[in-house]
């Protein structure tokens, strides 16, 4: 390419790219591929154990002990006060739910839209969904003043003859998140079955064999089983999309339904969904980068083309996010509410004004300046850095909405600034837990849906044999 003097247009570049750069055009024998995945799962270096040990220590100290201390002492050890009753815990809830969205988005929407390049990373993204929801759940519990009474929020008959209040957005939230956790776990599990069966067949005894045996549900790969599985997956892929959109809309209602300046806004639903995708896409990029560089053989499965796909999505979502973000400005401007105006001024000119600028830099400047370039998009480390920055930006965005925004209420006498306390430790602990869970999962289940990759490659092979128009497998589905 270097020999060509003038820069290539995109189409031109595609034509001149090595087709073997595409995973689907670079098939390996199925046995070999299975072998590679199994090896990546089984071969564990000392680095892994060191990292696991370190993360375990962090989780025990920063999460388990800190949480115990928080429960025993009360929320006074956190940074919440009046009027900032909600702090980083709720920021984390929204953030992690946001992260969890991209997983489903990628696998369900891309599956429904039959995007070929999704194949190797759907699993990693779905796992992120489930683990992200676990983090979000923990954050909710940390936030509660009396977490040991959580069960009062469950609608079960009891001696007090009391129901929970379904008028409360928090109840909607509880319902939505529980539904989403259940359905996303199911949706993670279904495509996992053939891979678990593969792992079962390639494992020689031991607890692993039992583990896979139980989870594979006796899958043997017969025609009928495949048919049932694909039907189930299709149903879930379609059904989970509205669930996903509804969950983050409902999360946004926690804020939009409150009568607070700056929160009570009709645009919050789509704005939160887009925000969630923004951080989630970026998180997928980070996870893929990490998997590619830490897991054996994964460089074969995860290729620049996949980063390209993610990068394009990130770019698109970033633009949509910017649109909604500034929409959020226009609504109060048009409404002329003095308090909402103060809310925005507070974010821009208050003592923590720099957070607002960092957020805009990370969420808009970074993606727009990196992701437009195809070559840069295909550079994994660059994309990972962009992903980290976007996540920082999105976390800050929630931080500005929640603890920063809570300073501004209709009683100026009470305005106070929030200074985080034990939340910092717990946030670190939560991140550590996420990575720890991911690392443990990487030892237990194949993080590459290897059957999907093989399916895709076969479909491409079919097309290649003979020059006639032969539909791909995904078309046949």
């Amino acid at each position, binding site marked *: 390419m270097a020999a060509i003097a003038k820069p290539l247009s995109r189409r031109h570049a595609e034509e001149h790219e090595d087709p073997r750069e595409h995973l689907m055009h670079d098939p390996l024998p199925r046995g070999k591929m299975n072998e590679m995945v199994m090896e990546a799962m089984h071969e564990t270096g000392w680095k892994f154990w060191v990292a696991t040990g370190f993360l375990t220590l962090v989780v025990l100290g920063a999460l388990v002990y800190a949480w115990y201390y928080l429960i025993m002492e009360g929320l006074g050890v956190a940074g919440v006060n009046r009027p900032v009753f909600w702090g980083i815990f709720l920021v984390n809830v929204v953030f992690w739910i946001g992260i969890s969205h991209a997983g489903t988005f990628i696998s369900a929407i891309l599956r429904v839209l039959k995007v070929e390049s999704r194949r190797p990373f759907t699993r990693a993204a779905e796992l992120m969904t489930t683990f992200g929801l676990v983090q979000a759940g923990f954050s909710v519990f940390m936030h509660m003043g009396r977490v*040991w*009474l959580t069960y009062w929020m469950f609608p079960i008959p009891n001696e007090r003859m009391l129901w929970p209040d379904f008028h409360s957005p928090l109840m909607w939230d509880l319902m939505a998140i529980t539904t989403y956790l259940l359905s996303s776990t199911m949706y993670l599990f279904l495509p996992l079955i053939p891979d678990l069966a593969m792992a079962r067949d390639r494992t020689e005894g031991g607890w692993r064999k039992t583990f896979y045996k139980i989870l594979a549900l006796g899958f043997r790969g017969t025609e009928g089983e495949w048919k049932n599985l694909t039907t189930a997956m299709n149903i879930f892929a379609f059904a989970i999309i509205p669930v996903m959109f509804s969950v983050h809309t409902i999360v946004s209602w926690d804020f939009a339904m409150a009568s607070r300046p700056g929160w009570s806004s009709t645009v919050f639903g789509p704005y939160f969904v887009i925000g969630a995708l923004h951080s989630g896409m970026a998180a997928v990029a980070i996870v893929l980068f990490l998997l590619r560089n830490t897991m054996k053989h994964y460089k074969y499965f995860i290729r620049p083309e996949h980063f390209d796909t993610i990068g394009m999505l990130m770019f698109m979502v970033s633009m949509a996010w910017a649109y909604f973000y500034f929409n959020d400005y226009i609504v109060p401007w048009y409404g002329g509410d003095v308090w909402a105006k103060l809310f925005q001024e507070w974010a821009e000119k208050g003592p923590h004004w720099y957070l607002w600028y960092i957020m805009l830099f990370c969420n808009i400047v970074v993606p727009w300046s990196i992701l437009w370039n195809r070559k840069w998009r295909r550079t994994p480390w660059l994309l990972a850095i962009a992903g980290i920055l976007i996540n920082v930006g999105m976390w800050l965005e929630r931080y500005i909405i929640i603890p920063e925004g809570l300073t501004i209420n209709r009683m100026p006498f*009470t*305005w106070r600034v929030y200074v985080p306390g034990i939340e910092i430790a717990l946030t670190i602990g939560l991140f550590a837990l996420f990575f720890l869970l991911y690392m443990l999962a990487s030892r237990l289940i194949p993080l590459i849906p290897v059957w999907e990759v093989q399916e895709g490659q076969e479909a491409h092979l079919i097309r290649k044999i003979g020059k006639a128009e032969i539909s791909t497998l995904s078309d046949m589905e």
Partner: protein
Amino acid sequence: MSKQLSRRDFLKLATAGAATSAVLTGCGPASRYVKREPYMKMPEYTYNGLSTYYATTCRECAAACGLVVRTMQGRAIKVEGNAENPVNLGKTCARGQATLQGLYNPDRVENPTQQGRGKGAASQMDWDAAIQVVAEALKNNDPSEIAFLMGTAPDHLFDLVSDLANAIGAPAPVRFGALSMFESRATLSRAAEELFGQSAMPYFDIANSDLVLSFGANFLETWISPVSFTREYAQMRRGKPRKRGYFVQFESRMSQTAAKADEWVPLRPGTEGLVALAIGKLVAEAKDTAVPASFEAIDPAEVARTADVKLETLEHIAQLVVDSEHPLAVPGGTAVGQTNGLATAESVLALNAQFGNYGMTGGVYISPLGPNQDEYHRPASPEEMLNLIWKMKDGKVKVLFIHGVNPVFELPSHLGFLDTLQYVPQVISFATFPDETAVASDYIFPDHHGLESWGYQRAVVSSQPVLSGAQPVISPFFNTRATADVLIAAAQQAGGQFAEALPFADEVAFIQSKLSPLVGDPDGSFLAPEINMFSAYFQQHGGWWKNDPALSAPIASGALTKKLDPGVAEFSGEGEFFFVPFVSPTIGEAGANKPWLQELPDPTTTVTWNTWVEMNPETAHELGIDNDDIVEVMSEAGSVQAAVYLYPAIRPDVIAMPFGQGHTAYGQFAAGRGANPVNILSIHFNAAGDLAFAGVKVNVKKTGRKHELARMEGKVGVYEFRKE
């Protein structure tokens, strides 16, 4: 008695069963986990789960407000105002409300203690030994070398000690308190004496006035009888149909009282007297009457320049006076606490004479005496305290009895009270709390808390003569004993003239002897045929008072002819700023050991739990000082450190600090908290012997340290990010 006592119903003793049921019903968290033990030997009638209410008197300051205390099963659980008592008519201030935290203060002196002046280990003793000590102190010393130092309140104990001192030939007991110092009571009564020829507390009928000009008098905060003044203030504002009283405050900083004024006129400290005279002259000119002699020599334009106030403002105020029916001028606070304080007070009284309101509705009167009192005893002025200190230094005091006052804390340390104690061979404190003075004594023979004791107290400022009655609302909590009982028992033990001086079985017998002249008085709030019934009614109603006001009009003749020249006050020290100490409206002189008083926001700054230095933001900006910076405030007498509050409503040349914190002892809530501004006051008295506490100039230096003041307000919304 057991130290841990029941917090709630005896009937709700914690049991294992209760704990189980609490956990099973998910209720554990909201219920208390306090150890419950029954109250020993509770009388049967307290077992019924109903509340009993007792009328008594508030002892948090000397105003003699009546209280009704709600008790339940032997615990005092809520203080309410006694609606019958004419002083407060059922109302209370914050300090009165928090008096229970004094009663149940964890730091109270629980036993008679041989203290050894805080050196070495304190040892407990029993009451017999304690009485022995007091008896010997009385008997073995020459009566003229016995000194009694007591709190401001004119109560039964003061009467008892006066009788004792009188009978044995000891000097009369000295009453003192920081509040009386900041109120400048001596100056007020001296001014009355000079102008009216009658030593008494002037009475200002704020309630019926329609224009109040207050010269520094912080009557809504701590001044003399804040609850009754606040009541009167409300009456002045909204009590009369269609006529809202108008209120102007002359003060160099916006105090809580000034914040309620319609106009706050920040004067240069020490010029209040001149301004009063200038207004007098302007009023006379506006009314086209002859200018009385008192005001003749005054040039209002010159005064306005001196006082740093616009002449138009003074003219405008004079016009307000002309337009009003019942104008009233009140002197007090920092205006009187200057070297020219007496002349200022006289000038303001003369201004009232110019208004022609002596003895008129909404004007100036003379307060009546208490029902069982024949002449006005005012608390000692700081100069008289200095005399006592000199006497102590000269070795003319062999034994010092201290009750109800904490001079080590309340007197400016420059007076040297603490150092002088070493010249007194024996110091016996009757303190309820381990305050600084008690700690520096030989013995502490703890008195009951006010809510545990008998007594009566005269209201000093009230339109009716009031004797507010006190009775125990709970049985004593600790091994304490009424000081009156101790003195009576000691006097009996000492025998001879001592026993003759106090021929009473106990405190109650003494109180009855003092009440007996009132039996059968037809003008009183109740009529009883004999003393026992009288006593019972006295307790039931929370005191005895005359039904009708007994105010007398001051003699105005001399007021307008006397030549007055308050001039500008002199200030000691080379400092750049005028220093204005004021009594914290919420903590007062002795509230620092009550946690809820500590947590109450100061009405103007909303600061809690600490001392602050009020400074104009402009001044601070010039000095490079920001909010919460700890600064050192230095006078010629010393220096204190406290954090800065940038207070927008204070003159740029004035530094103000609240008094009430800065204890070195006085329990865990008070000790080591804040700073005591009286420690940088130098010793200058006015002509009446009151301390010129506002007559000091100070310098301010940044220390480089910071301490975040615990404000109730959000600094952000109130000052920094303001909604316009």
